[in-house]
């Protein structure tokens, strides 16, 4: 197949074959991974569950990993990471994503409002180290909060699909019961499998009745809660994903118990724009060369040169685009316009952009 594509590309040179195929149909590509939305569900208020059918280049995901989705909004392609919620053993090319529409979240709101069957999105192969290990641990504790549920949901469904015989506890924090995506399915798994325990917490005072359910515990994660839902936690592998306070609470307890190695976490927070962009703070990392240095506030091109790198450059004044590089993460300020930019994985001209806080440039 690869040989054939190369042969055909002799004819389409210098343009890759996909640049022709995508004009026929956006999901028809020889090399690039794409996916077509086949089903859209708005079962949970404020979030959308998409079923995607990936093109044949899809190699599946490990439970807990994320994929990158790219959509064009007002002419600009934006990419975001989401964790598939389906079990990893799924042999076909379908992927399910549950996307919570965050206030001000460009891509999540767009998907929430505009995703329709037939829509084609860019897809990057699954990646991330937050994944259920092989072989499976003997005991598994899954803790999540809000939209952090997605990777651990995949883990739970994977264990269910594999007829996992060990102990599993799934502990999820949400504002209210109807905000829990796939709640019926979670409950069904817990009912079907005695070794699976599914618990929900709503951060309210204990004893408060919320929609017919009486809240237990403090409503927040603490040691007592941990003892109650998974007394065997010291022998388990724990996976946690959610808002920073939850992550900190889990980390603190496991640190105190000397169990740092047994807890795995994934951050689910967005990069925020610092209040005062004029201050040069943070670290500039050039991840392609594995170099990092204190941010000096100078243009990123100069900062790269100061640490001994020799990035390609031309005019050094923002005209020629010779120095364009990928900003992997962080916030940058355009020195010509003063504009701030916190979008990840974006091409920037490093001669006219500086770092605001921690920035990672793929150089």
């Amino acid at each position, binding site marked *: 197949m690869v040989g054939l594509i190369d042969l055909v590309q002799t004819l389409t*040179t*210098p343009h890759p074959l996909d*640049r022709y195929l995508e004009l026929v149909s956006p999901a028809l590509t020889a090399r690039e991974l794409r996916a077509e939305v086949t089903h859209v569900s708005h079962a949970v208020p404020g979030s959308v569950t998409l079923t995607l059918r990936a093109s044949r280049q899809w190699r599946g995901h490990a439970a807990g990993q994320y994929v990158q989705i790219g959509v*064009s909004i007002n*002419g600009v392609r934006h990419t975001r990471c989401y964790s598939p919620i389906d079990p990893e053993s799924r042999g076909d090319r379908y992927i399910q994503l549950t996307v919570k529409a965050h206030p001000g979240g460009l891509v999540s709101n767009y998907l929430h409002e505009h995703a329709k069957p037939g829509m084609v999105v860019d897809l990057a192969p699954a990646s991330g180290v937050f994944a259920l290990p092989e072989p499976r641990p003997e005991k598994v504790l899954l803790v999540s909060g809000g939209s952090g549920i997605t990777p651990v949901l995949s883990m739970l469904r994977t264990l269910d699909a594999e007829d996992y015989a060990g102990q599993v506890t799934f502990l999820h924090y949400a504002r209210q019961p109807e905000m829990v995506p796939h709640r019926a399915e979670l409950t069904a798994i817990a009912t079907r499998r005695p070794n699976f325990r599914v618990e929900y917490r709503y951060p309210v005072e204990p004893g408060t009745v919320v929609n017919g359910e009486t809240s237990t515990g403090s409503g927040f994660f603490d040691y007592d809660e941990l003892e109650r839902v998974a007394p065997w936690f010291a022998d388990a592998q724990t996976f946690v994903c959610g808002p920073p306070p939850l992550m900190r609470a889990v980390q603190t307890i496991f640190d105190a118990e000397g169990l740092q190695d047994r807890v795995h976490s994934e951050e689910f927070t967005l990069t925020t724009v610092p209040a005062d962009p004029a201050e040069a703070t943070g670290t500039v990392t050039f991840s392609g060369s594995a170099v990092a240095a204190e941010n000096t506030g100078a243009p990123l091109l100069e900062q790269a040169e100061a640490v001994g790198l020799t990035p390609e450059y*031309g005019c050094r*004044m923002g*005209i020629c685009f*010779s120095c*364009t590089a990928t900003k992997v993460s962080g916030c940058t300020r355009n020195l010509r316009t003063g504009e701030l930019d916190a979008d990840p994985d974006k091409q920037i001209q490093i001669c006219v952009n500086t770092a605001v806080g921690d920035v990672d440039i793929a150089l």
Partner: protein
Amino acid sequence: MTILTEGKDGPVILTPEQVEEFGQALDALRARIDADLGERDRDYIYKIIKTQRGLEIAGRGLMYLGFLPPFWLAGVAALGVSKILDNMEIGHNVMHGQYDWMRERGINSREFDWDTVCPADQWKHSHNYMHHTYTNIHDMDRDIGYGILRIDEGQKWNPYYLGNPVYAFLLMVLFEWGVMMHDLEADNIIKGKRKWSDLKPLLKGQARKAGKQVLKDYVVFPALTGPLFVHTLAGNAAANVVRNLWTFSIIFCGHFPAGVQTFTKEETEVETRGEWYVRQMLGSANITGSRLFHIMSGNLSHQIEHHLFPDLPANRYPEMAPEVKALAEKYGLPYNTGRFSKQIGSVWAKIFALALPDSLVKRAPKPGVIVMRNRKATEVGV
């Protein structure tokens, strides 16, 4: 700093404040267009790409009927137009970073390559950097004469230039190869200003890129038409030449018609942003024409707007042009434009005239522009 231009009613002097005002007005125009970029521009460029790919496939297909002259001619025309669109409205503009804001892999200045023998990275160096940064500055902008021609009075005459029209003609017919060799700076090698060893990576890149192009147009596609091998080969070669003649003509109309200004290094030292804009304006020339003509020229018919805003999508130049022209008029700066026949005629007249030593050519008094920088007004008697 004073910028003095000579208009119809005598010299026009711009004060430094006026020059900066002029620059700020252009910055404001830029910001307005920049903020407006979106779906419309995306649709435009994809429509052009679709048209180009369609024409390419049609051109390749028609070669199967290449034994019939009308089909052969139609095939050459379709493929020629496809290559022109690929090089000008798509390649040139995408490689300027005009569509980088879309963050699409297929139309991104870092990844795009075009259907010509010149590798994208070398062109981006000689064009985006050397030419666009140092536009029309002698000994800096290598587009002044391309190391081959005498195209400006500022280049000192020597007997080699007697062949000027011949060199220009050859450059026109073989333009894609000329563009490929541009970044080698062969004349600097001959003059000993550049080492042979500097060329190695460039030559390697050229061999790789040109090899693929030659294989496609002169071996594989002809072979795919079997007994029509020679017809297809000739057709593909003709399409490449059609593209060469057209791109050469459009590009030469951008900076070399009568009335454009060149500069010296001394004049342009330590430029302000406003002065940079003035230089781009004085050093470029437009061509008037229909919408189709503008598309076929990659909007380089709006060379002035392109040089002021090289990284804004070219499909926006037509709507920006009236404002740029009004600004030029407001400040008494020339806005060099004219129909294609006038601009290209003036280019060839220059190529012939500059072949001869200055003493043999009686030059009409130049309506040209005098630009002063870093000098007090009193020194030039104003």
